[in-house]
Every structure is written in structure tokens, then in C-alpha cells.
């Protein structure tokens, strides 16, 4: 499996327990590789594969020009992101088998993601001939093939991310024709505070008990009341937003529990187990 980070920030590699990786696939776990996309590197690779242009150093004037095309001109940059992913999908090993069974892409933020996914359509309306026309056509076909490409939405249990997820779903269906199969609602507080717990927290801070309780517990019970109230509200917000998403999206909405551990392999495994369980 190949994990692709569109923004080369190192977050995806860190979540898979690896140090920052580069443009070449790097094995981080058995059967899992990760790469970070750099449009300039994509462009060099593209020119090497299709035009036999040797790798050039950053110092040459030609490199400066190509760097600018890859990173500065709107259009090529978007296409190089999508094109590299499509290229990896097409790659075969020495035995002619697909290099990857599955490619998982950590996409850009929603405003940018739509631009990336609609880039092939925009490019097709511009390019009428040349090598690039047929390449963009197969990239576009790949993205629109619901059997091969799907998109999962990720939202947080807050109003704005929920609104944005719903809007993005509509735009993706309308503009990009891409299948959207599931929405994850991340960082949901799954524990609720029961009436008995709430009653206990309130009773412990009552003036007639507070001092005795504090002495017996070895610490103040007041922060516990505050924590319970916060957990209660966060749980309620998660439930409310999951309900709103389910009402507006015709796809499964899967809440994922808030974790207190740092991002890393252990956390990713916990989340992977939760996803597997939910999708089973």
C-alpha cells in the first residue's frame, strides 16, 4: 500500500511512525510505503520518464525555468500532484503486476482539494493535442472510475467543518464526478457522563461535603465537576454533529473517538482498528 502526502509537512510519515520521507516511496511498515509530493520533483520525474530529459541541478537556468513551471504557474502544479498519484496507480513491478494494491492520499484542505481533483477537467478544456492530452484523459478517467477511485470525507465535530464537508460532498459530485463513499467524523468524545456521575460530581463539591471529600480523595473535587461538564458538552456536540451529517449526506458517517495519545504509529493503529470495526 502506498500512502501519499500532498502537503509535504511530515505529518503522514510521523503518523506512520517514520521520520520525514522524500519524493521516493519509503517503506515504513510491512506492506506500507509513504511518499511526500513535491511538484518540482514530480516534474523532473515526468520529463525523465516521457522525454528522457536527464536530471538537472537547481543551478542551471533551465532548472530555474522548470522549477517555476512546476511550482509557480497555476495549472501545472495541480496537475503534477494528481498526475504523480495516477502514475503510481499505473506503475507495474518486474512481473507486470500493479506496484500498489491500494493508494491512500492525504489530500489538501477542502478548498484546495477540489481544485486538484477538477484540474484534469480544466486542463482538458485547454489542451487539444500533444502528449499531455491523452495523459490527462486517462487521469480524468481514473478519477471518475468509481470502481478504482473513491474519496472519504473527514470532518471535526464542529459546525464549520460539518458545513464544509456537506458542501464539499456536493461540489465533488457535481464538478468532479468522483465517488464519495464514507465520511469520518474525527475526534468525537464517545464517553458520556451519566446522571449518576453528574450527581456524584455535584454532591462532592456541595459546601457541606467539599472539605471532607477533599481530605479523603487527597485533592480538590471541583476540577472533576468541571471536567465532567466539559466531557458532557463535547459528547453532546459530537452526537449532534454526527446527526447533522447523517441527515445531509447519503453516505455512512463514522464517528472516530478522540485519542489522548500523541500522533504516531500506536495512535494510527488504534484508529485503524476503530475504522475496521466500523466498516466491517
Amino acid at each position, binding site marked *: 500500500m502506498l500512502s501519499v502526502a500532498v502537503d509535504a509537512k511530515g505529518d503522514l510519515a510521523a503518523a506512520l511512525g517514520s521520520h520525514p520521507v522524500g519524493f521516493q516511496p519509503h517503506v515504513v511498515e510491512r506492506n506500507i510505503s509513504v511518499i511526500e509530493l513535491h511538484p518540482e520533483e514530480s516534474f523532473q520525474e515526468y520529463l525523465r520518464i516521457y522525454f528522457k*530529459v536527464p536530471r538537472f541541478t537547481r543551478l542551471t537556468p533551465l532548472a*530555474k525555468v522548470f522549477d517555476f513551471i512546476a511550482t509557480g504557474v497555476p495549472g501545472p502544479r495541480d496537475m503534477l500532484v494528481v498526475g504523480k498519484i495516477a502514475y503510481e496507480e499505473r506503475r507495474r513491478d518486474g512481473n507486470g503486476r500493479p506496484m500498489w494494491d491500494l493508494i491512500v492520499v492525504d489530500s489538501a484542505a477542502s478548498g484546495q482539494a477540489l481544485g486538484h481533483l477538477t484540474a484534469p477537467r480544466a486542463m482538458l478544456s485547454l489542451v487539444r493535442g500533444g502528449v499531455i492530452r491523452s495523459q490527462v484523459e486517462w487521469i480524468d478517467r481514473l478519477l471518475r472510475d468509481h470502481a478504482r477511485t473513491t474519496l472519504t470525507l473527514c470532518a471535526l465535530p464542529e459546525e464549520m467543518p460539518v458545513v464544509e464537508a456537506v458542501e464539499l460532498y456536493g461540489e465533488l459530485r457535481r464538478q468532479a464526478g468522483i465517488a464519495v463513499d464514507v465520511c469520518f467524523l474525527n475526534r468525537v468524545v464517545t464517553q458520556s457522563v451519566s446522571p449518576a456521575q453528574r450527581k456524584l460530581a455535584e454532591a462532592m463539591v456541595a459546601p457541606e461535603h467539599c472539605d471532607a471529600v477533599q481530605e479523603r480523595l487527597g*485533592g480538590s473535587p471541583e476540577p472533576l465537576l468541571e471536567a465532567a461538564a466539559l466531557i458532557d458538552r463535547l459528547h453532546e456536540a459530537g452526537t449532534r454533529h454526527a446527526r447533522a451529517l447523517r441527515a445531509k449526506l447519503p453516505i455512512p458517517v463514522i464517528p472516530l473517538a478522540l485519542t*489522548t495519545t500523541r500522533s504516531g504509529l500506536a495512535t494510527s493503529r488504534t484508529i485503524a482498528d476503530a475504522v475496521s470495526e466500523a466498516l466491517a
Partner: protein
Amino acid sequence: MTARVERRRAERRGPRREEWPSFALGERLGALEVVICAGSGGVGKTTISASIAMSIAAAQDKRVLVLTVDPARRLATALGLKGIGTDPVVLSQTRLRRAGLPAHGEVVAAQLDMKSAWDRMIERYSPDRKTAQKILNNRFYQRISDSFVGSHEYAAMESLFEIHETGEYDCLVIDTPPSRNALDFLEAPSRLSDYVGARLLSWLAGPSGLGLRAVNFAAAPFIRIADRLLGSELLAEVADFVRQLQQLYGGIQQRAREVYRLLRSPVVGFVVVTTLEPGPFAEAEFFCTKLREFSMPLRAVVVNRMLPDALRDPSGKVAATTLTEDPRVAGWLSTELGQRISADTARALGDHFLMGNALAQRDWRQFSRLAHLGDVAIARVPLFTDDVSQLEGLVRIAGLL
């Protein structure tokens, strides 16, 4: 109920309208003419940008424009509006006051209209109407100016400068795209200038407009690749576009210099918005470093969604640990409180605190790292569990800035 508990409950409820604080950040930033808000995706940047605009309007009698550059249409949601079109939407003093903001000024919200910003840029820098029209009609130009993600940054910086120049608003608050794109945003003027002035363009344009056949020796391999890649029809269109664009070079280069001067001037301030999640926080630190490299003035860091200090209370942690680990505590509580308390109930209550404590401790470690920023103002916005996207919610945040 103890006074302490009552005080904490009051803190949770938030201030009553007559208790609004002094809008300290609004006071501080209100002296500026341009406030640029940057930060990672998903940290609440649009909400904070709108709240900063309100905080300034509350602190001072200013006309404040909050302009979003983010292609995701979050600003309208943040303001509780159905949508913001190309025309700015005025949030009058009356409306702001109704929402609880003791406004002295006025807030106006607008969304970047990318296409018309590009068109205006072409019209402004073209030496004559005919050149402008030729570029505006070029198919290649039409696509790059309205279809691709990277187009936003160029258009946004131009709009920022253009609006600032009109003097129509006392203060502009810019909600930028997520940080990595925000860096593109900062580099946009010089990139555009490089683009137009690049050797590539001379090669594509051909000497004195003689066309693609008349290129020099160095450019020949590039042209051959470009021809095979794009096809001769598009390449000719690109070359035509480039030929026209070269006439704009002087104007664009001049504008790039002016924009850089503005961004480094004392009337501009950057506000970095972040949460204490490791990813966004690392990106905020990266952005602060970049601002220093660019000699651009960082005025404040707004830390959004901070957990209550009570969750880090060491005394609370001891109490919670006793509840989760002492098997006899439930029995003692039953006797003391005069009600039956099960061991599960006591343990769960302790667990709730310990979960919050783990998150709050992690957050605090990150927060402490902001000390290295020196005299930059740090504003803390607590985690709100109810929706803050309506105007009243933004007013509530504005009061905390």
C-alpha cells in the same frame, strides 16, 4: 455551593453582555491598516479573522473589512450568512450591537473574486486597451485565472494592495488559505514578477515576435519538449499570451516591490492562528520562523480551542486518581454523601478528568513553547462546545481577544 464553584460556573457560561472585556487585541491591532491572519487548515482561522475584525470595531471607531482568500467558503458560515458574493456585506453597528458587540466601528465582509481580480490586474498593467483585450481573450489566460488553485495567491495579494490603496477601509483583516499556501501568498508578488520576467517567456515569445521557430540555441530543447507535450496549437496560444504579458513586466515588477514594501511596513501585522494539536502547532511555528526570514511583522499568535486550566489542576488529578484506583472510596462516598455510589460511577468520574488532564497537559507543553516568541501578543481562545459560527458566537470570541 462554594464561591469558587460559582465562579467557575460563571466562567463556563461566559461573560454577560455588560461584562464584555476590553478587546485588548482589537485595541492593539486597530492601529494597523492591514492584519493578515495565517495558520494551518482546520484551526478556526476564518472564525478568528472575523472575530478580530469585530474586536477592532468594538475597540475603535474604524471601518474594518474582513476579506477571505480561502477558496472554501467559510467566512459566510462564520458570520452566519447564507453567502457572501462579490459585493461586500456590511455588518452595521446596529446589527453588531444586537449581537452583543458594543461596536464603535463597522465590519464589512467580502470574498475574493478571483477572476475579476486577475482581469483588473491585466487591465491595470497593460500599456493599452488592445493589449489588455488580447490577454483577456486568450484561452490560456482564461483558464489559469479562474480554474486552478495557485491562481488565488496572485489575485489575493493584488486585491489586498488594491483595496488598501483605495483607503476605503481603515483596516483590512485578511483570512488567508492554509499556511503552506499562505507562504505562496507572501511570495506571490515576486513569483509573478519572476514569471513575467523569466527567460522562459523570452524563449517562448521568440525574438521580436518572430515566433517559435526563431528561438535561440539554448531554448531549442525546451521548445521541442513543450511542442510535443502541449501540441503546437496550445503552445502557439501560450506563446501569444506570453508575448502580450511581457509588455506588462514593468508594471508587475513595480507592483511586486510596492507590495513587499507594504508587507514589511509598520502598518501591517501578521496574526498566526493555531490550536495546540501537534500538527497545526508545528506549522504555526514554521510560519512564524518564515515571517522572521521575510522580515515581516508578527504581531500576535491566537491559540484557539484551549482546554480549561482546571483540567491541569494537580489537586484534581490526585482526587481523580483516588477515584479510579481506591476500591474503598465508593463506599466512603456513599456514607459521606448519603446516597449509594457504585465503584463504576466513581471510577468513570475519575477517568473523565484524567482524559481531560492528559489532553490539557499535552496542550500546555506546546503552549509553553510560545515563550520564545518574545514580546508577541498571545491570545487564548477557550474551547467552545456550542456553535460559535453565528454572529453572537463570534462576538463572544471577539470579547476574549
